[in-house]
């Protein structure tokens, strides 16, 4: 990727030799990324990342939908899915948002039952970003195929954490993100099965088979390829190593923190993220205190101006706003070591005790003012 940034100035769309070299690099990256999904290279559209892939899938399929006016999705999707759906809803589409169970799983039977000839698109996260639940999508794919509806999976959280095969998943569109698998940011891809009708969002050139105009991000694609190669060679071993580290961390914390709760299923999950509700503390406070001690965690969603809203995923899973505010995600990566897990476990237990003692959650005497000013 660095060599590419330094040396490859060629435009893959140009006919001269440096352009041809660049084109070769881009197509090698496409083959490798396709290989990770069990897909053919010509089905891969490079994008700027997961958010663009989701936007392209949703708006693109909706624009190509003809007279079909319904979209089936869920209440626990990423904001780059929820926002396009809200936009389409305002333009006359009917959006069905399926509710998950307490563990963040969508009932595949209910989803399949919601799919009929008026459905243009089904869009679901294969792995939920916040709680790691893996959805069972086979019955949904089958129903989509029968209704001739487009089936999109947001797999940004799944690729690199579980084996992916677009044919066995039975999806027509699939989102992936470069940086989520250890590649650079600013690159992602949308798998787009050959016969699937999707209208492009960025017009003005023949790049990416007309699906996305603009000079391709070659350094990004090359970095994406390198990350995809690493995933392909180490996925199995790393997944089981991370699963055992995450389990060790979870077992320790369940023993050390009475009332601690894991959000999401114990089994049908990707192992890299633990979403935990810590009793008696504000997630925001615990996050700060842990960060100062060298343990990084994350929360549902905090906007740039610091307003903390309870996670829409946890609320949809039936948690109270207060429980959602007491929840943090601890993420493990391919670089996480045994020593780091031991350090994190001891630190989290110690810091939780301090935060719970110093700043217990108190119900605010709500005068009703906050509500009326909203």
């Amino acid at each position, binding site marked *: 990727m660095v060599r590419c940034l330094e040396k490859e100035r060629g435009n893959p769309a140009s006919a001269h030799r440096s352009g041809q070299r660049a084109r070769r690099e881009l197509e090698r990256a496409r083959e490798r990324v396709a290989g990770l999904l069990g897909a053919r290279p010509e089905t891969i559209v490079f994008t700027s990342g997961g958010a663009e892939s989701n936007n392209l899938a949703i708006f693109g399929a909706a624009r190509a939908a003809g007279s079909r006016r319904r979209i089936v999705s869920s209440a626990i999707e990423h904001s780059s899915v929820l926002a396009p759906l809200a936009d389409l809803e305002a333009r006359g589409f009917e959006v069905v948002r399926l509710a998950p169970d307490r563990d963040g799983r969508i009932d595949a039977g209910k989803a399949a039952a919601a799919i009929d000839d008026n459905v243009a698109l089904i869009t679901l996260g294969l792995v939920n970003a916040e709680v790691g639940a893996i959805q069972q999508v086979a019955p949904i794919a089958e129903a989509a195929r029968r209704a001739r509806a487009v089936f999109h999976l947001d797999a940004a959280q799944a690729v690199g954490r579980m084996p992916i095969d677009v044919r066995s998943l039975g999806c027509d569109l699939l989102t992936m993100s470069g940086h989520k698998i250890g590649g650079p940011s600013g690159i992602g891809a949308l798998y787009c099965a050959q016969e699937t009708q999707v209208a492009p969002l960025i017009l003005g050139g023949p790049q990416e088979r007309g699906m996305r105009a603009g000079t391709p991000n070659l350094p990004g694609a090359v970095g994406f390829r390198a990350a995809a190669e690493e995933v392909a060679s180490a996925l199995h071993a790393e997944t089981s190593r991370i699963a055992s580290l995450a389990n060790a961390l979870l077992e320790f914390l369940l023993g050390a923190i009475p009332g601690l709760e894991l959000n999401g299923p114990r089994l049908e999950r990707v192992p890299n993220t633990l979403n935990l509700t810590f009793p008696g503390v504000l997630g925001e*406070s615990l996050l*700060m205190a842990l960060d100062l001690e060298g343990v990084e965690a994350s929360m549902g969603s905090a906007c740039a101006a610091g307003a903390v809203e309870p996670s829409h995923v946890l609320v949809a899973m039936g948690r109270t706003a207060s429980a959602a505010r007491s929840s943090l995600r601890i993420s493990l990566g391919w670089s996480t070591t045994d020593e780091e897990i031991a350090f994190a476990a001891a630190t989290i237990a110690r810091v939780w005790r301090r935060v719970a003692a110093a700043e217990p959650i108190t119900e605010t005497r709500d005068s009703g003012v906050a509500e009326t000013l*909203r």
Partner: protein
Amino acid sequence: MNGRVLVAMSGGVDSSVAAAILRERGYDVVGVAMRLAPEPPAGSIRRKATCCSHDDFEDARRVAERMDFPFYIVDLREDFAARVIGNFVDEYLAGRTPNPCVMCNREIKFDRLWSRAMAIGADFIATGHYARIEQDGDGRRRLMRARDAAKDQSYFLFAMGRDELSRTLFPLGAMSKAEVRARARALGLRNADKPESQEICFVPDRDYAAFVRRAAQSRTPAPGRIVDSDGRELGRHPGVHHFTVGQRRGLGVASGEPLYVREIRAASGDVVVGRKSELNARGLIAEQVNLLDPELAGREIPVEVKIRYRHPGLPATLRALDGTRAEVRFASAGPAVTPGQACVFYRGDEVLGGGFIARAIAE
């Protein structure tokens, strides 16, 4: 290391320099900006930035990056709404004129934020207030006016407890505003010449009556009568929340000589007006009184009392009536006394305590 200190940062020059000074002195500084004001109503036109705006947080974050200390934004909107805005609205509904900055210091900065400081293992909390905390030979701490009399903010801090004084740092107490700005420029802080915020942070347009109406909704005071001291109706008014004792403008009543608001009777909705001389008070009764020196209780003490932030101060005699109330008698006839405002007692530069004005003692 001198210990960990949580510095409350607004993005303004004062709290930025306070944080920078503590960092230079070897404290383990953790910068915190508080999200306090509620969101503007959805779909409203972007209003003038309040002190909790995104840009201000970015200014604070830049300072933290430049001075190399951690920085966080904390969301205290619910506590602020319940404990500060709620009180602000209730006070207006009761016909009084609140001081939300005093409430915010007492309820948010030195209470709610202190819990957060302990949660992150901090030993101290610091702000950019212009005030000093001095320590006696016997270890007792006294709250003192700032060296820069023009900037002194000790008035807003009277409600601090003695425990709070022992764990609070005011790094700017001995500096002038000009020195603070010069220091900010020397440190290369880009907010060195940022203008001061003057208004109440959650009412940036200063339209308090409109804010009260929006927050109180069905509890908003009804229109009422403007009467003179003998109860004669001189006119009508749109609701008691539009008025402050001592106010002259906006009465809408024609009269030979200037009329001022003398009293607000929330229960009946009457606003009583009178000539300036009718406003003079002999003293006041204060409630929610905090005495920083408990030995003062039960004695008559000569003090200087400030009855508004910009008030120059009056000689008076203070007598604590019971745990939370006090009587203040002015040495000579004083100006209009505005219920709801803070009154703060000084001996020289030392803050002896203060309270909220319950009512005037009439001539």
